[in-house]
């Protein structure tokens, strides 16, 4: 346990150091553009899994949280010219509130009805933002990047590093939850809510907690996106593709362990980036659909599940 913890934090520090080093050494801008998107999806998938994986409440509203993150930044920049850290923290706070509201929904809905409700929530918020003139309405809005701080050569490199920090934050939280009493409680209520409650698990409080944490992270990850694209419009900020991609990455990687969503996001995110560059963005949606179907049908426990099964088989082979 303890030694694992040390290894994890050394790994995280190395990862951040490498990301920082990359901004100093690599001069080509493309790796940062592509890397940002992949990091963003890792963070989204990890954040999503806290509710969707551990608690088993499948949230199709990733786009809602992401979009709200984007637009809270847009609003803060336009109204106050707020700096990036303020944007991210505000987005996290709003996301936590949205998560709390979502958590209250779990009182009345489970399974597929919860999922459908989260889709509904997404479209409703998107429509509201579309009708909000101040942040550009349906046509969208251009955003000016402020001058970059001394530490970085340009803004995209800084965003790249910020997203790497968010990834570490999301993974650390997710890992902590999995290993703590929260994770065990969530696992129990995922298996059987009434049995969990009758074993002393405060299911409502845990669900609210998972929703708040997951929501805050999803929103925070969306916040830098406004600066990254220098443009925001409701159609792309609230695009259902974010929801389905995030869900697909988590399911493909496997939600039984905190590393699953990371594996899934790297795999699918990288593939999508390559396809977008080499072929077209349509094909990338096709691949998303095909991978989702293949994994849900063929490997319902994801890559983590496959690895565990191979491990178990090998161990049994050795024993006999």
């Amino acid at each position, binding site marked *: 346990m303890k030694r694992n913890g040390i290894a994890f934090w050394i790994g995280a520090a190395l990862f951040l150091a490498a990301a920082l080093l990359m901004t100093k050494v690599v001069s080509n801008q493309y790796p940062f553009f592509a890397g940002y998107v992949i990091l963003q999806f890792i963070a989204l998938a990890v954040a999503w899994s806290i509710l969707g994986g551990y608690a088993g409440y499948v949230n199709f509203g990733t786009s809602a949280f992401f979009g709200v993150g984007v637009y809270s930044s847009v609003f803060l920049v336009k109204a106050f010219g707020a700096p990036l850290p303020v944007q991210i923290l505000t987005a996290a706070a709003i996301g936590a509130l949205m998560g709390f509201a979502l958590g209250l929904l779990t009182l009345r809905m489970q399974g597929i009805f919860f999922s459908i409700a989260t889709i509904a929530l997404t479209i409703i918020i998107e429509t509201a933002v579309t009708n909000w003139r101040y942040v550009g309405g349906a046509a969208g809005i251009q955003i000016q990047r402020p001058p970059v701080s001394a530490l970085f050569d340009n803004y995209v490199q800084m965003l790249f590093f910020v997203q790497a920090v968010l990834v570490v934050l999301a993974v650390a939280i997710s890992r902590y939850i999995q290993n703590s*009493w929260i994770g065990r409680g969530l696992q129990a209520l995922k*298996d059987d809510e009434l049995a969990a*409650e009758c074993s*002393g698990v405060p299911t409502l409080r845990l669900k609210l907690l998972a929703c708040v944490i997951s929501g805050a992270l999803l929103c925070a990850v969306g916040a830098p996106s406004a600066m990254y694209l220098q443009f925001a419009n409701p159609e792309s900020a609230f695009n259902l593709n974010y929801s389905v991609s995030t869900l697909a990455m988590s399911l493909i990687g496997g939600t039984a362990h905190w590393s699953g969503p990371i594996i899934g996001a790297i795999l699918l995110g990288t593939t999508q980036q390559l396809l977008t560059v080499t072929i077209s963005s349509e094909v990338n949606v096709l691949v998303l659909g095909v991978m989702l179907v293949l994994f849900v049908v063929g490997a319902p426990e994801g890559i983590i599940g496959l690895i565990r099964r191979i491990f178990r088989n090998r161990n049994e082979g050795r024993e006999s």
Partner: protein
Amino acid sequence: MSSETPAPLLRIASLTKRFGGFIALDNVSVEIPPGERFGLIGPNGSGKTTLINCISGAFRTEPGTVLFRDEDITALQPHLRTRRGIARSFQIPRPFRSMTVAENLMVALDFAAHEHVSVAKRRDTMMSILTQMGLASKANVSATQLSQVELRKMELARAMATHPKLLISDEAMAGLSSSEVDEVLDLLMSLASHDITIIMIEHIMQAVMRFSDRVMCLDAGRIIAIGTPSEVMANQRVQEAYLGT
């Protein structure tokens, strides 16, 4: 508090539960003293499981009150009732399917504990409960791989892991062979003590007769008889309810 009769552990007063127009429990009142082995019988749909759900908190009731150790718990959520010492098994077993038997028990030990105990201590408790239940060899087996009788025992073990003062067993013997019925019955007998009161719902009459200090029979949501096992069995309304005449 009178010294002659101990204060009841559980006191249910004029409990009524409706589902839409259907009255599942109709003005049920009963008191159960500590240490009693209490049998609950009645035909299918008579309200036995509904009563259990009202005691353990899965259903909200109004009107009516549930008092546990002189505390009104009518409005408490189920997990808070569990922490106060009410544990139950389910008619259709509800294991945590993604966990091993040991982990199933650890959930109860982690969350229902009254005071903080070290992980090592909790593991010891878990193993001693499993040993008592005859499940020690299955500790690291997935809950999905248990046989029917093992599942029943695991449910009781998980309930025991919450340190209950009141253990409610909801048809823990349904679908078992007669030797397995005896096995589970012996277990329940061994669990019962002055500190652990047991309510047993059962259809198997020999089991109820052997087990219970006192038996209550429900029919259509009402108490039709309550008393010693032989009294209740001799009651004409009970016989009618069971024979359906």
